[in-house]
């Protein structure tokens, strides 16, 4: 487990840490305003993504529901909904296993916000959509295959 990374994630919102990163050139100045997790969004494989997020080896869970079409005619716009029934859901990540940039989005929930979200993603080809959930400090996931008729990542 990458403890340093976990610590960074936890304190990532702190301006001091961000300022430090900017000073040593770890993140570009235009990124400095956000706590945007470049390492996670640059991950090219599922393993890299898990490592960057500090997710370790997430456990498959039936308490997460992912809704997406079985067949997406247009990979440029694939609607996806994730609902977590896990207590203390802190984060929901949407991962697209076959995309060059695997991590599509990360959502952070506060007390009072329902642990569910709907958005639209791009899928380059047929593959698994994965919902990764951080709840009470632990990571869980569920995956669903979406068949893509026409890829939506350009090129």
């Amino acid at each position: 487990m990458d403890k340093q990374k976990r610590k960074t994630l936890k304190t990532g919102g702190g301006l001091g840490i961000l300022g430090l990163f900017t000073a040593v050139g770890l993140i570009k100045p235009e990124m400095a305003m956000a706590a945007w997790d470049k390492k996670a969004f640059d991950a090219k494989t599922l393993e890299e993504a898990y490592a960057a997020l500090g997710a370790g080896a997430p456990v498959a869970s039936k308490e997460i529901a992912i809704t997406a079409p079985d067949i997406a005619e247009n990979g440029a716009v694939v609607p996806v909904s994730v609902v977590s029934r896990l207590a203390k859901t802190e984060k929901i990540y949407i991962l697209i296993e076959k995309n060059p940039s695997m991590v599509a989005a990360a959502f952070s929930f506060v007390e009072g916000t329902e642990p569910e979200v709907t958005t639209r993603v791009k899928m380059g080809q047929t593959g698994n959509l994965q919902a990764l959930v951080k709840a009470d400090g632990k990571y869980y996931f569920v995956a669903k295959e979406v068949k893509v008729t026409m890829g939506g990542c350009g090129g």
Partner: protein
Amino acid sequence: MADPMKIRATAKDGVTEVKVLMSHEMETGARKDAAGALVPAWFITEVTAQHNGKTVLQAEFGTSVAKNPYLSFKFKGGTKGDKIAVSWLDNKGDKRTDEGTIA
């Protein structure tokens, strides 16, 4: 300057549902233009939604989020007339904040 977002929020049975449609190209950096040149990545990286000034949802986007990003979520509380403010920031440092009212 980017086009305004569309924000719809409705309160029902003590829960407010917020739907946001942002206007953004969300270029992946992998697409080529007609001349064969790579179009640089240009995408929203961070989104924050606030209800009466209190943050209710934060999101980070990568390049795999579809063009003109759509986002919907729900939070407990909220009454008709309350303000919902949504802000985004993109990888070029451009940003935009729009406000909606709970119906």
